[in-house]
């Protein structure tokens, strides 16, 4: 287990920012930490990186307890804080050199690591520029290079793509995916597609508590509400509401049936069924026995957006 969080609680004054959360991150996993702003993601990350201690609870990183062995924990972690703070008056190489030295790297290893990071993060063309002159995308790359400079086992990235344009977002995501192959990564975001694009597993956190934990498929399955099946059929009947509607309604596990209108002899219906059921075969058989021509049948389950929305609003 690369990271083990146990009953972590953090108070800011009287306000409870993080409430008794526990989770594990396996070695090599990319974990998405998802939640609305102010849910407690950043606080949790600040505690894991030993920036501040928890009010209660324990965290272990690579077997080191954050309270007992803070320095060992910090050695194992590469951290990109929220808003990616940087020394704007330093140039890229100076800054990477500084970060590397603070991690105890010495030449010749140090020079090699800087070179490697510049290459991996694609910042070769700006390496002699002051960080203050760089675009946001490049700054983010410099921030990632800094986090990776000592080849840490664990990467903690707090909103690594916030404030970037869509192209930069794609670039940074690919970079994280590439870098994260050999690392354990926790990455926080409030953007769902980010998790879908990069993470193996997701923890959804809301108001300081974990509300969901699992792979994307699991979450989609677990939090699926009713299924929606849209059908389009061809039937020569005088009145759809009396001739088709009751027969559909009589199928098993139906919750509601909505009539979606007709074009000539073409009729549309939206059918909602109970959670986890699939009655497409029943619909088909029904259509065959009634001599309807089934033109379209499609099943749409709850999207992740809907899951997220449901979990993080009260």
């Amino acid at each position, binding site marked *: 287990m690369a990271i083990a969080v146990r009953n972590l609680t953090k108070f800011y004054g009287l306000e409870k920012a993080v409430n008794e959360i526990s989770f594990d991150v396996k070695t090599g996993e990319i974990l998405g930490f998802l939640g609305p702003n102010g849910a407690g993601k950043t606080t949790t990350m600040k505690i894991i990186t030993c920036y501040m201690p928890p009010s209660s609870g324990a965290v272990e990183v690579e077997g080191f307890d954050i309270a007992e062995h803070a320095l060992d924990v910090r050695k194992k972690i590469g951290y990109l804080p929220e808003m990616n*703070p940087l*020394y704007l008056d330093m140039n890229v190489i100076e800054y990477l050199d500084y970060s590397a030295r*603070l991690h105890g790297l010495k030449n010749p290893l140090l020079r090699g690591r800087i070179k490697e990071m510049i290459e991996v993060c694609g910042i070769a063309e700006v390496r002699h520029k002051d960080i203050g002159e760089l675009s946001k995308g490049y700054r983010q790359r410099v921030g990632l290079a800094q986090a990776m400079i000592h080849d840490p086992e664990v990467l903690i990235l707090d909103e690594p793509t916030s404030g970037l344009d869509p192209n930069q977002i794609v670039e940074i995501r690919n970079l994280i995916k590439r870098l994260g192959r050999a690392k354990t990564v926790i990455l926080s975001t409030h953007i769902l597609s980010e998790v879908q694009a990069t993470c193996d597993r997701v923890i959804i956190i809301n108001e300081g508590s974990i509300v969901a934990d699992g792979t994307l498929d699991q979450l989609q399955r677990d939090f699926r509400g009713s299924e929606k099946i849209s059908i389009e059929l061809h039937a020569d009947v005088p009145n759809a509401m009396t001739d088709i509607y009751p027969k559909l309604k009589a199928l098993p596990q139906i919750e509601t049936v909505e009539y979606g209108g007709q074009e000539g002899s073409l009729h549309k219906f939206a059918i909602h069924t109970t959670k986890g059921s699939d009655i497409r075969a029943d619909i088909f058989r029904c259509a065959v026995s009634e001599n309807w021509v089934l033109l379209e049948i499609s099943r749409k389950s709850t999207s992740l957006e809907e899951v997220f929305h449901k979990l993080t609003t009260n």
Partner: protein
Amino acid sequence: MKFDIKQIPEYFSKLSNVGTIFKKELRSYFNSAVAYVVIVVFLAIVGWIYTSSMFLINIASLRLMFEWIPLVFLFVIPAITMRLLAEEKKAGTIELLTTKPLHDWEVVLGKFLAAWALVGFALLPTLIYYITVSSIGELDHGPVIGGYIGLLLMAGVYVSIGLLASSLTENQIVAFIVGLIMMFTFFMFDKVLIFVPEFMTSVIEYLGIDYHFSNIARGVIDTRDIVYFSTLLGFMLYLSVISLERRKW
């Protein structure tokens, strides 16, 4: 800050972190205009005091210079130290720095030494006055050497005060003003003795930084003065470390 005798060897190996921070801070002083402005301002003020007065009294002495530099320190040193921690807090880089594998005291010590060294650099060109005066007339070298040692010690205390002020806020202007007020307080202690009840005068006088400075500047290096400077300096650095650890409360 926990102190454990058994960890002393580890503390020494950690001095490389202090060195890294020291170099970075000193470089950023010289990369920005701060260092040059400080050096030039310092040299200009001291030079003006020196030339405008020396020819009046017509004695080969640097006494006036050593009387005035402590006053110049009061304004120059808070300007040097105000950014040290306040800027990092404002920019958020303090979070990067304090999640690196190093102790908070290493951060404080590295930054302190960098600012102190900058004051040292600013003092260097004033040796020109020393050289010119000693070539013009007979100069008593004792008070000059004492004076420079005294200035460095005084600067050390002021820098530690300024660093503490910088650790208290993320606003550099506030850090400057708080630092200035604290330094001024220590500067004034031995100058307000007539307002102080008689039984307290020796205590208040002992607190005054200028009192100890003028002792040393006379060319007499007394352990009492050295103890004063080093305790005050150490205490201020200790408070800065505590203040930096406030985030953990």
